[in-house]
């Protein structure tokens, strides 16, 4: 505990100092921050993809898809992956050192470690005239379209509401629209956790025969989900017909608890994320794992870099684009159920995308 809070305090301090420094540096005129459209030759571009770390299946897919996109453009040697390992100051430090080297021909596709880090990354990108696309996290009230800079090209996310809603509906249908469920939430202040839970509640309104007995957070953690589900099963003996989980890792933990209680297959489970293990279980109707969602890792890696690259080479001027191209959700895709689990796409494959049209996966604008 001690070490963790101390590390967090030091990290926060470091970020604050960096913010302060970048704030002061406004007085120094920045080299190329003023130009509105890029003038880089593709071979001079550095493509950078950053996320938490490769101990996580999702980021492995993002990295693979981003790399595949770089190869398809003949830029495999210009690609690099940065792991934040959950450390904001480390992520910002690495980004700064890359910008110092590559300047205005750097394309960044960044899943920021936390929302509050985004303004600092935007500032760094503007200062060196680089091109930034952000994923998932950003603080409320900031967006590429509200700034006066073209360098924060776009912000891309996935709407958790339909994910939570569609998986909940699949769960309720598998229970015949009658019975009681429990819910496992993600870390409560994460936007995906909030959105997915809102989707569950929307589905509950449409199914009057279904009661939500209780929801608890298992913080995206598999073991915690197993412990909480075990406790739910003793608390509501014989009552639970389904477990709705906000992620596959939690759903897999819940399924383990259900199996150990000798009720495997009878109590239904759903998750979100499209982990390989979950997709395999969905294929087998007797497992009780009813549904998960398709992973959008490939679209996030490939299109994030594609949009940034197009801005850097001057194919389009971000400042001229409509708001719906600057902050958007990816198009929703059908969830994975027993019917279609057999042909679920590989989460890292980019062959099915039309990458010549960089806006082809754009869905609703983020408000």
């Amino acid at each position, binding site marked *: *505990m001690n070490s963790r809070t101390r590390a967090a305090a030091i990290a926060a301090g470091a970020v604050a100092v960096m913010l302060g420094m970048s704030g002061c540096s406004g007085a120094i005129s920045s080299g190329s921050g003023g130009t509105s459209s890029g003038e880089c030759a593709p071979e001079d571009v550095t493509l950078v993809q950053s996320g938490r770390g490769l*101990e996580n299946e999702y980021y*492995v897919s993002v990295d693979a898809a981003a790399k595949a996109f770089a190869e398809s453009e003949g830029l495999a040697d210009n690609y690099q992956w940065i792991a934040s390992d959950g450390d904001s100051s480390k992520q910002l430090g690495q980004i700064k050192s890359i910008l110092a080297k590559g300047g205005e021909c750097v394309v960044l596709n960044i899943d920021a470690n936390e929302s509050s880090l985004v303004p600092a990354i935007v500032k760094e990108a503007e200062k060196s005239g680089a091109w930034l696309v952000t994923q998932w996290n950003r603080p409320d009230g900031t967006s590429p379209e509200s700034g006066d800079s073209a360098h924060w090209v776009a912000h891309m996310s996935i709407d958790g509401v339909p994910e939570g809603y569609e998986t909940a509906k699949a769960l309720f249908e598998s229970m015949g629209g009658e019975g009681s469920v429990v819910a496992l939430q993600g870390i409560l202040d994460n936007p995906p956790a909030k959105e997915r839970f809102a989707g569950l509640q929307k589905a509950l309104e449409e199914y009057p025969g279904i009661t939500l007995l209780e929801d608890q957070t298992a913080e995206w953690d598999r073991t915690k989900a197993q412990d909480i589900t075990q406790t739910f099963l003793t608390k509501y003996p014989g009552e639970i017909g389904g477990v709705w989980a906000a992620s596959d890792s939690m759903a897999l933990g819940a399924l383990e608890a259900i199996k150990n209680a000798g009720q495997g297959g009878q109590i239904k489970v759903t998750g979100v994320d499209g982990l390989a293990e979950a997709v395999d279980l969905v294929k087998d109707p007797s497992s009780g794992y009813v549904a998960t969602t398709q992973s959008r890792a490939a679209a996030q890696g490939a299109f994030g870099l594609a949009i940034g690259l197009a801005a850097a080479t001057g194919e389009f001027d971000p400042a001229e684009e409509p708001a719906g191209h600057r902050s958007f959700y990816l198009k929703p895709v059908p969830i994975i159920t027993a019917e279609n689990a057999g042909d679920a796409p590989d989460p890292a494959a980019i062959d099915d995308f039309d990458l010549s049209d960089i806006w082809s996966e754009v869905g609703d604008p983020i408000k």
Partner: protein
Amino acid sequence: MPALLVLLAICVVMAFVNPVFLSGGNLLAIAEQSAVPIVVAVGLTFVILMGGIDLSLAGVMAAVSLTTALLLRNDRNDLDLGLWAAPIAVAVGAALGLVAGVSVARLRVPSFIVTIGTWQIGLGIGLLLFGGKPPRIEDDGFRALLGGSLAGLPGMVWISLAAVIVGLLVQMRTRFGRYAYVIGGSEEIARLSGIPVSRYRMLSFVVAGATAGLAAVLATARIGVGDVGIGGDLLFTTIAGVVIGGTFLTGGRGGVLHSVVGVIVIVVIANAMVLGGVSSYVQQAVQGAVVIVAASIALWRSRERLRVIK
């Protein structure tokens, strides 16, 4: 043992709030959920008794979890060592403990910083072995052995009981156990009495590494995949448990049984909050508050006038 009183108090309160708490099924669930942190706490106790600290748990468990999954029959390679996977995995944990022990005892680096280092080393090994997708254990026999019932209790509960008994025997019947109290009480006196302090201190980290390794084998068998994040939250449970149990962080007081009761208190708090229907939004804060209250109650009698608290 005041921690027992805390445990009793929780049981009495819960008997009124939700009688399910004392049902056989729930007690079994608590036993199974306590098994992993109890095994960790048995080894950690010896480090803390000597006045050291071991923060490397999450890293050691990451490395051992992946090792275990890859040595058993799995969907990644052709290895199928069955029961032999367990001792090898425990040896990996002990080896990481040895690295920490040598650095503390021979290089004279404080254990706090050394074990942050071995934590990162362990995480690194876990990451190397992870390779993009969690390796799935396909050796159902091995998993059934630890998860299945044996005389009414899951196998992992028996193993945690065995770990506690061995820990108690080591604490009471061996030189290592008895000297741990002397070293923690006053390293100077131990040195002047001719006890090879650094050797025993080194050994304490090996023991803690080995038990963290054993805990990782149990936890991995329980979820069925090798997982780098498997020990993420356990440090809070075990260190808080050890302290509530009445083992002083300054060393010299406490013991295996104290720690075990303390860990059970922490697990029971989490279980009781779900059974009591406490909202997720306040649980974390409640858990922290209960820990402070429980620690104050448990340590009330040890408030000697001249005892220094840092």
